């Protein structure tokens, strides 16, 4: 067994949430710069320039890229040979989130009761934590501060197996079309196909964090990603929804085995910042 102290978890989670909120993924920044050359709409070009400028300022001065510093989502791979000492795993994660948000000038956007009181918890906790137990003696953290302008545009379709690839593509494109300017386009679209209703959405969210634009390992799914991306960009939504040919930066699909009766399709929409950071203990 390898011992990892709760305090190490706190520090790592804090470090990663600060990083994700201040520093844009360099690959994403490169892609934004490339799209600036491809965009033909004058307003679209203007918007992309502002987005790029914002990302540079945020990184240089360590300011949050967006005022919506998100709900704290974590995907954790916990090695089964790890023993956590001096504290509780979930508490340590929440403590790390709390410290990042309180000390890093990040906005606290969590309310306790979703319907009645809606009182701010003042710490941006509780975090949303997904843990997979994996072989090994390390803990891998993938953190994702998820803003709700884009989260609100997400959809779940419990399609019929007969709907097939065409039905899936149509459902995803329709979701993005309806969302229009709301989720801060150009977007990154995470898609989860298969599993159960709940699992499909989890893998859709995680798919957003894949290396930007890297195609699916399966050729069939890679072709589907390409087609969806093309069809979304053909909608003309454009940067900030003000018209243009860059509406979406990438479509990332992940898939899982599913039931004979089902074809769950989850679409998790993400803004152009797609904030996330990874680290290992």
């Amino acid at each position, binding site marked *: 067994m390898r011992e990892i102290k709760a305090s190490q978890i706190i520090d790592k989670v804090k470090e990663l949430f600060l990083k994700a909120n201040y520093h844009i993924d360099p690959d994403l920044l490169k892609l934004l710069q490339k799209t600036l050359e491809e965009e033909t709409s004058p307003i679209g070009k203007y918007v992309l320039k502002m987005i790029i400028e*914002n990302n540079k300022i945020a990184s240089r001065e360590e300011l949050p890229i967006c005022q919506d510093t998100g709900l704290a989502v974590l995907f954790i791979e916990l090695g089964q040979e790890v023993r956590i000492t001096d504290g509780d795993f979930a508490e340590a994660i929440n403590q790390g989130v709390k410290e990042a948000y309180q000390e890093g000038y990040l906005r606290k956007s969590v309310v306790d009761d979703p319907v009645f009181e809606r009182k*701010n918890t003042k710490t941006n906790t509780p975090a949303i934590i997904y843990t997979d137990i994996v072989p090994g003696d390390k803990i891998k953290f993938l953190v994702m501060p998820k803003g709700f302008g884009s989260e609100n545009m997400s959809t779940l379709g419990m399609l019929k197996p007969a709907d097939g690839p065409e039905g899936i593509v149509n459902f995803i494109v329709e979701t993005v079309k309806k969302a229009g300017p*709301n989720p801060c386009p150009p977007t990154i679209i995470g898609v989860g196909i298969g599993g159960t209703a709940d699992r499909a959405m989890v893998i859709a969210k995680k798919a957003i964090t894949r290396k930007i634009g890297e195609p699916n390992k399966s050729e069939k799914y890679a072709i589907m990603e390409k087609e969806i991306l093309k069809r979304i960009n053909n909608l003309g939504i454009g940067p900030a*929804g003000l018209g243009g040919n860059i509406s979406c930066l990438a479509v990332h699909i992940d898939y899982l085995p599913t039931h004979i009766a089902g074809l769950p399709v989850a679409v998790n929409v993400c803004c152009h910042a797609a904030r996330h950071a990874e680290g290992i203990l």
Partner: protein
Amino acid sequence: MKEATKIATPLNEEKVIQLKAGDLVNITGYIYAARDAAHKRLFELIQKGQKLSIELKGQIIFYAGPTPTKPGYSCGSVGPTTSYRMDPYTPTLLNKGLKGMIGKGLRSPEVIESMKKNRAVYFGAIGGTAALISKSIRKSEVVAYEDLRAEAIYRFYVKDFLAIVVIDSSGYNLYETEPPKYSK
């Protein structure tokens, strides 16, 4: 794009009707920042006929809740939140004299009708450019509902705040007119 039109707050009907969808504007003066929970409170007070903690006449509300201010800065990162969530409350506020809104995203037909009737304008700021926008906020203070924390009402003094007229007081709407030009 054309050069930005300079406008000073507060607004009035004369200033508003000159603004056309597609205009880039450069705003200087005081504006308020308010979002979901603050809108609900303002709406409920108006419905009960009670006095509001801020004067709406001629004002601009920026749909936003900033991050905490870092030492040495005048405001935290602040950009627009998605506007449609304020739609149920907006016509009531427009009837009380609100002249401008800064946000991002679609508005309901009821809001657009009310904007035409009340002569008001909807500006789009670019979502996800909060660090950049914060540079145009020269002063920031909470003026109401501090208990709402991130959703309190702020009063900002802005200088050269850039926005785009997305829906003008005639109801001309860039979200409807622009994307079809680029759709294939």
